[in-house]
């Protein structure tokens, strides 16, 4: 199990998700992507990030939650084979996690961090970038 260090905590559909800081390239305000046909079901189109065209993935659709949308929506650009923008409702904070706070998801795969009363599902940017 890779060491958990710092994660970027994002709000999405009333839940919280954490992405390793090292995999987040930058966070930009959400702007509607340019639609384009794709074989990836949750791809919503492309945006220009300083001239580079970056695919925008609907993280809520992929995770099966309903995004709140709204003015605070952000695009989290994660590193991968090629950068991908993930749509989230908001970026909450950067959390430092202790290994002791991390445990497997009770039902299903993945890992979850307990921070006080909060539950943060830890995501892997490498997986999401595909």
């Amino acid at each position, binding site marked *: 199990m890779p060491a958990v260090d710092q994660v970027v905590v994002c709000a999405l559909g009333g839940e919280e998700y954490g992405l390793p800081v090292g995999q987040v390239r930058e966070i930009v305000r959400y702007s509607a992507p340019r639609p384009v046909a794709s074989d990836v079901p949750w791809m919503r189109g492309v945006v220009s990030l300083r001239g580079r*065209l970056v695919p925008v993935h609907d993280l809520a659709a992929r995770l099966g939650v309903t995004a709140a949308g709204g003015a605070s929506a952000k695009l989290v650009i994660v590193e991968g084979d090629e950068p991908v923008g993930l749509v989230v409702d908001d970026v909450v904070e950067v959390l430092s996690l202790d290994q002791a706070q991390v445990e497997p998801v009770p039902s299903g795969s993945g890992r979850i961090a307990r921070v006080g009363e909060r539950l943060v599902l830890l995501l892997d940017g490498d997986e999401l970038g595909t």
Partner: protein
Amino acid sequence: MIEQHEYLPSFLAEAREHLQDLGLAIVRIEAAPGDRCAADNVFRVAHSLKGMSATMGFDAIVALTHAMEDVFELLRQRAGGLPPDAIDVLSACLDALETTVEEIGAGGDERLDPAPLVERLRRLARDRSPEQELARDGGAALPDLTRALAPGETLVHLVAELADACQMPAVRAFMLHEALRAHGELLGGVPAPDMVERFAGRRVEVWVATRADASALADSARAVGELADVRVREEALPSPAAAAAGEPAHAPGGRGAPPRAAATVRVDAERLDELLHLMGELVQHRTTVEALAAEASVPGLPQAVQRLARTSQALQETVTRVRMVPVESVFLRFPRLVRDLAARLGKQVELRLEGADTELDRTVVDALGDPLVHLVRNALDHGLETPDERAAAGKPPTGVLELSARHAGGHVVVSVRDDGRGIDPAAVARVAVERGLLDADDAAALDAAGAAELLFAPGFSTAAATTDVSGRGVGMDAVRESVRALGGEVSLVSEFRRPVTASGDLPATSQGTTATLRLPLTLASIAALLVTVDELPYAIPLDRVVRTVRLDAVEVRSVRGAPLLPLGGELLPLCEVAGRRTPSDAGLADRAFAVVVNAASGRRVALAVASLEGQRELVTRRLPRSVSHRAGAAAGAVLPDGSVALVVDCDALCDIARCGRNPGQEGASA
């Protein structure tokens, strides 16, 4: 082994350059075996590669280049030129080096076994001077640069040639090592410092980490005596600081770099792309400033904006020019390829290269290589005949293969012409029928142009089946696909005549076949007609646009639900820019215009659009991989307001329009 990755990019770039020089030298030696200068080049390249590889710790490359250097040092001094099999051995060495360099570049290990090649090299020299074959081993120890040089230390490479009179090389080498140890630490050498007692060669090489001056080391070495020659050089290691900053770590003039390198700077290709992207953005911002300035009334602003425009235009031209490289860099790989392949196929070929100095954007040159290799191989394999066949057809035994490049408007045209047997429509028709691509009636009516087009049909060719039949065809669909991906087109023209006689079995005569690649000069920017559909912008490459038509001025017809546009007696499929075959459910209600475009192979289609926004110069951007092929988009472009336009892929749309379900079967209906 040093932390290679920091220096790896510059190592690879330099190594590829040297290998290209080596390839050129081989071609020249083949043309003129007595060419001293070319033999010198082999020596120089081997020497440079050895030095570079030694600093990187690539032992096998060092072993091979060391042998090449040795043997060519000997051979170039002999009268009467090189032995006849030198070319083969050198070609094998070059292949091995190229393969291993590319493997290293792909992140792999150095998987070169130098021993068989070293043996072949040594044999070249042996027939004349067996005494040179004295076991001169003692192994090579390469400088271990994990031991970072202490501040103030430099890495000095010393090469000492023992005098002919020297009776005990091992003793001299030992003394030399001792003399050098006084100045610093021996990091490695040939022979290895701890194997020196077995040394029986004539040349001693040592790498020393030292605080002393290189000349002081040379003086100490000379004091050892019985040395014919001593050379020292400070190895120009790229400084880690420069590498960390992303600087191309290159030491011009250091490792025997050719003189022309002195006036040039090697730049990372990605940086050139970055430069062009930034340039594109600057142009966009300039447009915005110009628009704002037109509304403001600030004294002096119009003049300032004008000066800004002039300078940025000049900058744009310069940036574009910086990216231009002669097509020669692609052409140069063909003399060897053609020579090797012709020898294997038992054919005689004269290769002609025309217009090698034609300049192209680097991206295009890079992408041109593979399709061109494919076409050349096909021409050699299927087009050109063996000397006997040619004689029977009344042709000279040596076939001609011509590669040429020239500019034509905003395009570059690269053609591969052979004077071989051409494409036989009857043979193509037979194969096409066998493969179910053509029915018997169509087969009987197949003409030369149709046959040539059929060769591009996916599924037409498999290497085994068409080798002797078509004269062309292996993987032509792959060639077309990659050329189209570049925004270009490829076509085949064959002049083919079968004499009409009573017996009917006279050999066909042919003027041969010409494959023509038409490519944009640069992949980075295009002139386009900007249109909108469903309020989204699309860019149609201007060189494809035939005309625009107001849809309210014509009566759109329909066949099986697919709309057709009658235009000058022709019925053109009316399709969507977004890749769907027919306009969406909303029908054509909001489509005010049709843009008629030229697509592959002289076809035309009409694209239904809502509005025409005018002509724009757009910097194109690569689309992410997850964009579907069905999108009918070749690239993207960022408009001044930050929105993204899709650059319409006319050929893909035409395929979709013509074939509905399966764009792949386009060729079959030809």
